[in-house]
């Protein structure tokens, strides 16, 4: 379970998070929606220690994330970055097996490669992709490799940051389905950031909308259409008119 308690974060005069309170239950798939620049990525990064909140507390299974042993703590997480964030200096299989080649989870080279190929197969990539470099792959393939890396060590919690950005609608659908399958199959707790409503419908058990640095609305995905919240309605229906200010 992940609990955010009154999280505040500012970058200079830009107050990104203004008291976020949110709970993600174990085994639940929560999708955070909200406009660009509303702090969705910042919120996820506070859990992993990539961004330090100005105030507030984040608990993962009851443990304060600032009080844990970093390596062991991070080994419970997997993350799919918006742009893939694959290491372009190493071949695909080494990207996928990165954690299995060093640190506490280190395994023999042949075994690490075997796991990488198995994970690549799980995300629909052929074994021959293993020896290619990330720059030789299409955007969709890079996302799949990044997904394979995120699940390589079978983490308990996975974060997906804009998983379908930059992909065509068909590939977006494929990635969404893949994420849903993996989340259900592995029984992980998942947090996904997106403004793609197709992703929301496919991936989410629960949806939270972040607006002006706070959680505007949070509820079951099935209740979203009848939320009665004008902000959610405007966002979901993609309307320019409504309480959310838009630049035209």
């Amino acid at each position: 379970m992940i609990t955010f308690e009154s999280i505040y974060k500012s970058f200079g005069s830009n107050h990104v998070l203004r008291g976020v309170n949110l709970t993600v239950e174990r085994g639940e798939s929560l999708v955070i929606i909200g406009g660009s620049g509303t702090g969705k990525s910042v919120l996820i990064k506070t859990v992993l220690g990539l961004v330090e909140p100005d105030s507030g507390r984040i608990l993962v299974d009851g443990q304060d994330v600032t009080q844990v042993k970093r390596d062991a703590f991070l080994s419970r997480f997997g993350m799919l970055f918006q742009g893939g964030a694959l290491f372009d200096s190493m071949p695909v299989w080494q990207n996928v097996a990165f954690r299995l080649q060093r640190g506490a989870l280190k395994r023999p080279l042949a075994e690490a490669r075997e796991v990488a190929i198995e994970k690549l197969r799980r995300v629909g990539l052929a074994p021959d992709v293993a020896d290619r470099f990330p720059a030789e792959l299409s955007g969709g393939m890079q996302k799949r490799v990044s997904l394979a890396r995120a699940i390589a060590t079978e983490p308990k919690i996975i974060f997906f940051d804009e998983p379908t950005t930059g992909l065509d609608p068909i590939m977006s659908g494929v990635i969404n389905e893949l994420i849903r399958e993996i989340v259900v199959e592995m029984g992980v707790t998942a947090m996904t950031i997106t403004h793609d409503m197709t992703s929301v419908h496919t991936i989410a058990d629960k949806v939270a909308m972040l607006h002006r640095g706070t959680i505007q609305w949070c509820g079951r995905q099935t209740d979203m259409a009848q939320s009665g919240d004008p902000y959610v309605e405007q966002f979901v229906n993609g309307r320019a008119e409504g309480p959310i200010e838009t630049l035209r």
Partner: protein
Amino acid sequence: MILIVRALGRLCIDAISALGRLVLFALATLSHVFRPPFYLREFFTALVNVGYLSLPVVGLTALFTGAALALQIYSGGSRFNAPEVVPQIVAIGMVRELGPVLVGLMIAARVTSSIAAEMATMKVTEQIDALVTLSTAPMKYLVMPRVLAGLMAGPILVAVADSIGIFGGFIVATQTLGFNPATYILNTMNFLTSADILSSMAKGMAFGFIATLMGCYYGLNSGRGAQGVGAATKTSVQAAAVLILAANFLLTAVFFTA
């Protein structure tokens, strides 16, 4: 008037805080040298990049500089009837000053820029964040191997530059200025002291450290987008070059005036 004083004050505070951040970064890097885990593969890759692949540019620069130095010393020495000092001055000039400084500036141009651009790109494309989420500290995985490689490759490159520079002077002196090869070598060997060679190696170590550290520091602290990568690369090379020349002055003062 107050505005000018305020602007000057802000400039001083910014400069001091930038220096403070850099010193803390250097100390943090050094603190990782003796703490596991050690990424040997990354270290050897960095050693090849910083050292081995810099050999051609360092060698060629030193060769031509040594040759030009011999011509200059011969021409200048002739003015006061002392053209025979060419071997001694080429040796001392290359070993004490030109060898280390040329190596420092060449690796600032070649290595600092490439490290800064690589790390800045990694930062912009979230690869640095990805490293952290994969339980790998960027300071340990990216910075420490490169800085350690700079520390080790610096003296070796300087030794190569010194030797090739002296060889360049030797070729010009014996082929065009009429020096006897055996006498030239003897004069060079007799004139150089172990203190000259040690100071040269120490400078190489310091310049290797500065060049790699600047690349890592500006790369990891780059701004966003292509502009951020470009700015980090440019600033890292400028800072490395200036710091190398300043460190050269300080080290020369310490070694030869103390």
